[in-house]
């Protein structure tokens, strides 16, 4: 398994070289969105209206952080479970979304869509929220402030540690893990 340091936005070549299980350290701008924000983005797409952010080459991080304490950039900010976004993801991939960060498995539909749209799904460490917040150097709300923790934030991250969970070649780290470690 390889280790990469990647800078956002991601290129097709960045995504193509990644294999499930690779460790990646992400640096650059990423955007947060979870359940409620996804719903709003899809509503806009359905109406043919522009999105608050151009998703081409971008990464969405499934997170709803805690409020930042005074003097801190962001509160605790670990990943939320990704399957809830499965039914809300393909339209964003069609808009050029190149990566997602969350935790847990994705549906067969999404795993296939990653191949079709040459995109990648990263797993971060669920529950390591205080630790991950240290990678966030800047945070600002750019849309849907009324959603509170579910607002879309623009984050500048440095060496955010993730694992390639689903690559664009159809591999799945979770399935491979069970195959390797399951005892009868």
């Amino acid at each position, binding site marked *: 398994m390889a280790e990469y340091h990647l800078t956002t936005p991601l290129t097709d070549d960045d995504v193509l070289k990644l294999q499930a299980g690779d460790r990646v350290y992400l640096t650059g701008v990423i955007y947060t969105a979870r359940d409620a924000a996804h719903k709003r983005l899809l509503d806009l797409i359905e109406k043919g209206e522009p999105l608050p952010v151009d998703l081409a080459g971008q990464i969405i991080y499934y997170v709803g952080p805690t409020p930042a*304490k005074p003097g801190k950039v962001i509160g605790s900010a670990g990943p939320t479970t990704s399957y809830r976004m499965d039914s809300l993801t393909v339209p964003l991939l069609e808009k050029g979304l190149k990566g997602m960060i969350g935790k847990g*498995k994705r549906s067969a539909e999404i795993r296939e869509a990653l191949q079709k749209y040459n995109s990648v799904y990263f797993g971060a*460490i669920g*529950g390591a*929220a205080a630790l991950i917040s240290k990678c966030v150097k800047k945070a600002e709300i750019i849309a849907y402030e009324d959603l509170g923790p579910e607002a879309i934030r623009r984050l500048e991250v440095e060496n955010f540690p993730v694992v390639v969970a689903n690559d664009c070649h159809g591999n799945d780290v979770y399935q491979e*893990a069970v195959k390797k470690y399951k005892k009868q």
Partner: protein
Amino acid sequence: MKTLEYQKIVDTVADLCMKANMHLNNDVLTAFQTSYDNEESEVGKEVLEKLIENAKIASEEEVAMCQDTGVAVCFVEVGQDLVITGGELEKAIEEGVRKGYQEGYLRKSMCHPFTRKNTGDNTPPVIHTRVVPGDNLKITVAPKGGGSENMSALKMLTPAQGKKGVVDFVVKTVEEAGPNPCPPIVVGVGIGGNFERCALLAKKSLLRPLDKENSDPELREMEKEILQKINNLGIGPQGFGGRTTALAVHIEMEPCHIASLPVAVNINCHAARHAEAVL
């Protein structure tokens, strides 16, 4: 007769909300360390190492260990000889949750089921009250995250399915949950009672410290058997593979109806949070 002031309850609940969310108890940290020592998967070890580091940061900086600071589940034991002055007990707990989540910079996660509009202060809490002998008030706050709660399940088995049916259902629930509930998990199992009672038993079992054995020898054996089976699944820390899928299995059991064998599996993520106080 012992009296207890409303505001004292408010302040105590607020403190417990913050304490539970910021300071992981030693039994869990010890379990992380033991799992780290025994974990054969390299990435599994890395995850456990980061969880230990995360708990340290959260505690030192007094920030939430996880951004999902949960539904504020409160177990309350009220001594029947205690008199509470200045307001209602449930209102005091609710106000305590409001205060704790505000002052502790904890995330407010409660919303309307359909509109998804946030209540803004993490209320209402889920309160389980029991009246007990004496004149104390014991409050346990156990913030419960949504990711692991979503992977929980309840089944009304037939009596013929018996013990094996229970074991199989618990293992299957954990297997299907896979990486989603943030393994290594703690598995709370409630057996017996009825539909709602077994769910409560499962939740309550999660309060038991990880280093404390079940006092019932039969259940103790069953816990070991289920834990072994779960850790043979290979899911591992965060589902990245390995030996540590669960840190512990806890079972609580009560008699049930002759027609039923209710079983509930309440999965807790590795942030097995709870804090208690006796007033």
